């Protein structure tokens, strides 16, 4: 069978501008080769910086942000795209090869209706008339399961949800009947319950239209559902390339094996969960405009244990953390800590109350002053709470660095000189410096690559043992909950739908929402998506 796309010895370079150093050329992708046949799907997987998106965009002969294709061949149906001139490339883009971006919300133009944007490429390339394109868009909206396809195209991007936008973007890519579609992390920004629908819609649409696809993601479980072949990338080089079966069931490389078995951490649930350290009694909260975001949440956490709060975006899980810290005083109910009621507002709490509860954020980047060194960042709470200065402070900073498994050499570095995982470690050390009893962790690993995230989780659990810490761990990742929690709270639309020890909360009988949530988490198992969809179909037929 002839190859649709053949990439040979691809080499992509860019000019990097490290802070305080002269610019230098770096290689992003080095010697990558693969083939893709008509109607097949190849998954590209790897952590951030592995060069997956860069490789995907090379199929459109496009380099993002100064990236430049400096070697190799990208052969689409016998033509090397890299030899084409501007006009030639333009005829390929949007007509024969289309692109689905990670954030459809940013990739759609806010000033135009969705329908006009979906058919634009097909009409401008002269592939069909406006009328034909509209008919095809309507058909694709239906295939992708969008609500009321007849009128969907009249809407503006801000008028539909994130999951619908992502499907609309897929419709836009499919509209011109392309030979190849590049999916660049199309479901990464979505909630799990939305992700499964989009994933199913994309898979259905690919089967229906016989288009070939490159599917880029960092989630092996997702790519296992949709691909025929998988290529594992790291630092711009191929680690392993094979069929889905081979990669998932019999990986040959250590790195692939680590990706497949990423979740090795497991924590035995604490048996005694009766004497609470933190208690939330019937807490409600609203924002200034009267919009209620929390409705009577009651839960508790015992000393030395971990309470995991799960839910999708907008479920109120971060708001609950804001109420616990006092950043958002509750409109009803109270927070009790160590048997004592905490002042509702941050400004009325004593310095010692503040010290006992610390925070770690999702974006360690934005939670640190970029103009301060690690020494200043970790040293600040030491001075603020304990009055440490000079040599005593430095000694304590070094001690904390040791606790977070970083060497003393990092003490005078700036945040920009640290990797994502190292930044999150420094943020943990800063929280630890206050000698807290409770740390609120707000999605601390969701911006990190799986293996790095695993390291952070292990560190948090080690510190819990050493320092008898309690955690409130906010996440949307059920696998993390299974690994680290003692008790679990499931939140949905500002309400607590389930709360209890992990063993009870995550076993049947389930309420409807928890059931949907648990079933939506992709499992690293071929055919999982079909199985879940079949069950759903049977259930809805039974109703």
């Amino acid at each position, binding site marked *: 069978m002839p190859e649709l796309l053949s990439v040979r010895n691809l080499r992509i370079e860019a000019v990097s501008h490290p802070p305080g150093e002269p610019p230098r050329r770096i290689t992003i992708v080095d010697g990558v080769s693969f083939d893709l046949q008509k109607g097949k799907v190849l998954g590209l997987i790897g952590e951030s910086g592995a060069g997956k998106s860069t490789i995907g965009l090379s199929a459109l002969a496009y380099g993002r942000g100064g990236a430049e294709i400096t070697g190799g061949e990208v052969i689409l149906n016998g033509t090397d795209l890299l030899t084409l001139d501007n006009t030639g490339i333009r*005829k390929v883009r949007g007509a024969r090869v289309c692109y689905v971006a990670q954030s459809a919300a940013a990739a*759609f*133009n806010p000033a*135009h209706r969705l329908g006009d944007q979906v058919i634009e490429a097909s009409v401008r*390339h002269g592939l069909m008339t406006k009328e034909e394109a509209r008919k095809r868009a309507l058909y694709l909206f239906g295939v992708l399961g969008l609500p009321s396809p007849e009128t969907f195209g009249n809407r*503006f991007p801000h008028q539909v949800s994130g999951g619908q936008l992502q499907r609309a973007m897929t419709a836009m890519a499919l509209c011109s009947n392309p030979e190849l579609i590049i999916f660049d992390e199309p479901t990464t920004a979505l909630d799990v319950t939305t992700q499964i629908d989009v994933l199913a819609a994309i898979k259905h649409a690919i089967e229906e239209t016989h288009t070939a696809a490159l599917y880029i993601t960092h989630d092996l479980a997702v790519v296992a559902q949709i691909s025929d072949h998988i290529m594992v990338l790291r630092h711009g080089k191929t680690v392993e390339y094979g069929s889905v079966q081979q990669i998932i069931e019999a990986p040959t490389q250590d790195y692939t094996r680590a990706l497949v078995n990423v979740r090795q951490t497991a924590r035995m649930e604490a048996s005694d969960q009766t004497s609470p350290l933190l208690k939330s009694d019937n807490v409600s909260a609203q924002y200034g405009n009267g919009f209620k975001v929390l409705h009577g949440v009651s839960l508790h956490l015992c000393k030395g244990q971990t309470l995991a709060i799960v839910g999708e975006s907008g479920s109120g899980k971060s708001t609950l953390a804001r109420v616990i810290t006092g950043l958002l005083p509750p409109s009803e109910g109270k927070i009790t800590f160590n048997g004592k009621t905490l002042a509702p507002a941050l400004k009325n709490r004593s310095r010692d109350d503040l010290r006992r509860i610390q925070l770690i954020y999702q974006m360690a980047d934005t939670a640190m002053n970029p103009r301060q060194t690690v020494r200043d960042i970790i040293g600040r709470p030491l001075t603020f709470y304990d009055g440490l200065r000079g040599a005593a402070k430095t000694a304590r900073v070094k001690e904390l660095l040791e606790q977070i498994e970083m060497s003393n050499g990092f003490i005078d570095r700036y945040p920009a000189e640290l990797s994502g995982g190292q930044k999150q470690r420094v943020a943990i050390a800063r929280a630890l410096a206050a000698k807290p009893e409770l740390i609120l962790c707000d999605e601390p690993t969701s911006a990190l690559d799986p293996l790095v995230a695993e390291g952070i989780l292990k560190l948090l659990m080690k510190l819990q043992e050493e320092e008898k810490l309690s955690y409130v761990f906010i996440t949307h990742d059920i696998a993390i909950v299974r690994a680290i929690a003692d008790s679990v709270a499931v939140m949905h639309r500002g309400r607590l739908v389930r709360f209890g020890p992990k063993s009870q909360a995550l076993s049947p009988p389930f309420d409807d929402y928890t059931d949907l949530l648990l079933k939506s988490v992709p499992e690293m198992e071929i055919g999982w998506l079909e199985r879940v969809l079949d069950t759903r179909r049977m259930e809805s037929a039974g109703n």
Partner: protein
Amino acid sequence: MSNSTETDSLPGQRFRERFPLLALVIERMLLSILLLFAVSVLIFGGVEALPGDFATTYLGQSATPQAVANIRSELGLDRPIVTRYFEWLGGAVQGDFGTSWASRNSVSEQVGKRLGNSLFLAGFAAVIAVPLAVGLGMLSVHFRNRMPDKIINVISLAAISLPEFFIGYLLILYFAVNFGVATFPATVYDGMDFLDRIKAIALPTATLVLVVLAHMMRMTRAAILSVMSSAYMETAELKGLSAWRAIARHAAPNALAPIINVVALNLAYLVVGVVVVEVVFVYPGMGQYMVDAVTVRDMPVVQACGLIFAAVYIFLNMLADILAIIANPRLRHPR
């Protein structure tokens, strides 16, 4: 938004939810009116607080206490300030700014003629400056960080850095005195034909254009660049659209709001900044009228000019905000 919040909301909130665009526009207009009243208080109070008064300036050497008191009571200056403010405001709302103390003519009549001249000068400068600035802005985006961009930047920065009266004198020196291709002073009168009029105001127009050009040009450049780096422009490129199509259809609608804003701001500056330029070129506009009135402490004229300048400024800014609100698809098409 859920149903529960709708039922217990006030009528004003319901209106805001159903017609967010209209509500915002009305709100913005009311704000402008409020602002104008606040400015009128400031102008009246400020003029009142100025040292020296008309009576002493007018009488000069013969200012006996009795003569000063006579003139003051004749002009009604002995009445309480609040009364005089509301009288003045009541008149101003109906277009009557009182009588000039110096010439005893109606201020409104005088201002009417002068305002026409000023608006003609500012308008003519705007007709040249706005397309030129937007065009140069697009040009420097097209040649970003290359020679044409740098040249445009340096020249426009030099122009904005020089005070307008200095540019005015430079232009007079070269074009009127040395080469003799332009006329000075810029005298216009009723019944002058259009071409002669244009010829007369060529130099003041050039001065004003040079002053406002740089700001508009640089904002246009920044607005287009910020739009060009957004993800939907990458989408347009990956759709294989031509560069022209991408800019006209995808970049322009989104760059419009910031450009409208800076254009309106500079139009307002044109009308107000015209004061200095008119004096330099002896042009019979509002600015000249106001400066003359200040020297003789002719307060009704100063107050009228101040209020009209403020009104123009506030109106143009309001217009810019309203256009920017309308240009926003999120407000035009609520969820």
